[in-house]
């Protein structure tokens, strides 16, 4: 579904690579957790996948389309929520969702049905007529997620989605991801919450200074480390050096 091949990226010309020759495959129907210390390059990788940044080297394919050669096709396959959901403060929530649905070409009946379901589920249905500027951080997060799901994308990409969600919403969110992948769709998300990664993800990858230092199922990671260790101790062990 998502394949990242030999991708490197530096923000400054001839500077250090913040993503360094990264290789990563995510299969359809998988929930993939992207871990790593602050500044490891998770957000940078995600932005390149979504088309917000250009990689210096390598290629990224989403759903069979190269992100650089066929950007519109890849973007149609992705639902994306950034780490800091800066939405249009001056639009009403319903206007924003409508805008997103329009640009993805979602028909009236389908969008109404999906909107109703998602907004109720996230408990923001009573705020849909409000300006987004009046939303709390968590509400914005949930609205961004609603917008990302309105076209039921084959690949959902989320940058630290749990930040700012209350326990109930976090729980909901986990269920939603499970549901999403049970329909054969894929979730790729970065997080610092190892608990969630451990229980929710089929596979995790750990990034450190732009390089993938570990990748696999929990089982595989445990075998590589000393047996029976938690993801936390594996993470700490791997990222310490």
């Amino acid at each position: 579904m998502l394949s990242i091949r030999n991708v490197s990226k530096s923000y400054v010309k001839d500077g250090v690579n913040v993503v360094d020759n990264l290789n990563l495959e995510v299969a359809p129907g998988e929930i993939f957790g992207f871990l790593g210390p602050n500044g490891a390059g998770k957000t940078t990788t995600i932005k390149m996948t979504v088309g917000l940044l250009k990689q210096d080297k390598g290629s990224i394919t989403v759903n069979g389309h190269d992100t650089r050669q066929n950007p519109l096709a890849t973007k149609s396959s992705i639902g994306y929520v950034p780490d800091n959901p800066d939405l249009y403060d001056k639009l009403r929530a319903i206007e924003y969702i409508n805008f997103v649905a329009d640009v993805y070409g979602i028909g009236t009946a389908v969008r109404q049905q999906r909107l109703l379901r998602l907004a109720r589920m996230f408990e923001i249905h009573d705020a849909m007529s409000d300006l987004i500027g009046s939303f709390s951080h968590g509400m914005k997060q949930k609205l961004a997620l609603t917008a990302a799901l309105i076209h039921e994308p084959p690949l959902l990409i989320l940058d630290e989605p749990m930040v700012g969600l209350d326990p109930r919403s976090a729980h909901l969110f986990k269920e939603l991801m499970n549901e999403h992948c049970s329909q054969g769709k894929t979730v790729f998300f970065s997080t610092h919450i190892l608990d969630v990664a451990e229980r929710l993800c089929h596979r995790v990858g750990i990034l450190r200074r732009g390089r993938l230092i570990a990748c696999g199922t929990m089982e595989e990671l445990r075998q590589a480390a000393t047996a029976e260790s938690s993801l936390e101790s594996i993470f700490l062990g791997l990222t310490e050096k």
Partner: protein
Amino acid sequence: MKSFWRLLKVTVLNYFHISVMQETYIEQRQRQWEPLLFGVAIVAGAGIVGGLVFTSAQLLLGGLPPQFAELALMMFVLATQFMALGFGLASLISLFYFSQDLSVLVPLPLKEWAILAAKFVVAAITEYLPPLVLLLPMLIAYNQRLPLGLWGILSALAVFLLLPLIPLSLAGVVTLTIMRGIGRRHRDTLIVVASLLSIAGILVFQFFFQSLAIGNLDVGEVLQGRIDLVARMGSMFPPSVWATRAISRAGEPDGLFNLLYLILASIAAVSAFLLVGQRVFYSGLIGGEERSRQRTALDAKALARAVQKPALTALVWREIRLFMRMPIWVLNGFIAIVIVPLSALFPAFAGGDMGLGQLTSLLATNPQGLTILVLIFAALLAAFSVINTVASTAVSREGKHLWISKSIPVAAVAQVKAKLIFALICTTATGVPLIATFALLFSPDFPALLLAFALGLVASIAPQALGLAFDLWRPFLKWTTPQHAVKNNLNAVTPLVFALPLGAISYYFYLWMREPLGALLLPALLGLHLVAAGFSVHFLLAKAAELYERIEVTT
């Protein structure tokens, strides 16, 4: 006191983006030609304006008897103060109510006056531009005509430095007081109120000056010094008299007293600002942070609005909503459109204005009169559209929201088209009051109205399309407050750069071709601009994908 200096330093660095510039230009050594170009543009711009002012001041002073030189000086002083008031309102509103550092500063253990004073100093720094291009050339010209002497030059320097302080303090008191009334949450309203006040102020100022200047004055009596014109005209704002006399009578006791008045008044004004500020600011601020909210369930009505539209329509609507709901952008772009027709209509209906009547009769007798009028109104429409910043900051305005546009599956061409369409909608909307003014003032026939409208609209396309292309090439995305997006953005003026040669070509086309072409002149001009528009739009759309692709969303 120490914390005040630190705060001041941080505020200055932050407001003028000095740290950002240091980072890009000095540390990363990127795009170093930019500050150079900036500097050259600013110096050249200030030089041209200053030079123009200097020449007109020379002409004015040279043509007037010496008794009037003082009056001329005061006009410039007054104009400078007036501009300082306007700029002061704008920058203080932005500093107090739109800057995001307040939520950081307020909880810090800083004295209230320190925050207020730091912001005031930053505003004051920006205030010295109008005196620099307006008052300084006048002072030089004045010194040429009536040498000031050392004492006079020192007084002039003091006046120069003091002049913006009183208007700025006034602006500060007004801003803070209005804010207290409406609360920080409604700061958008504040912009509207302040701008309407400014418009009213400009109109009153203009009216007052016209009636005074052209009113029934006995020039003989003025010449003999029996009427003190300076005192009379300065009565609406005494500091202007003090400032003028501090210079014109420097060396005499009277001059010294006037300088003293100005110094004392400046100190008093700044203190008043700080005092009022301490009382009012926090209550306005705190009152503003709370939000009242009534929630209604996602009802059938709201849901029924969720109807599918074509992507392009959705994009255009997004442009319209985002722009129109940001009062600062609307005012910045459209205030001229309100002021110019109003200030043309106001004296016309208030009566007693000779200028317009003369113009009408002149044009009525001139066989080319109607053509000239059509050209003037078309040029006005094009000029308004060129300065309204709608197209030229269309990409910049997306700022931190650009990730949305970049992650939706819509081709760059379509996104750019939507922005251009919105710009043209604005031009069309601008045309309506303008053409109505044309109709009201001169009652031309319908084809003339239509031609003026079409010509203005078409002539505005090329500069706007090219301005949009420029903004696509180098968008300014790192703004933190909405007015930075349009005000601290050099892209905002690029359409003007593109429009100048077009205007010059049109002008010479008119001069050279009006004889041979006769009645076909206007259609030919329309054709000319259609071609320019066609090429520009083609260029924009052809380059859109490539330019859009280049933009990276790093924030």
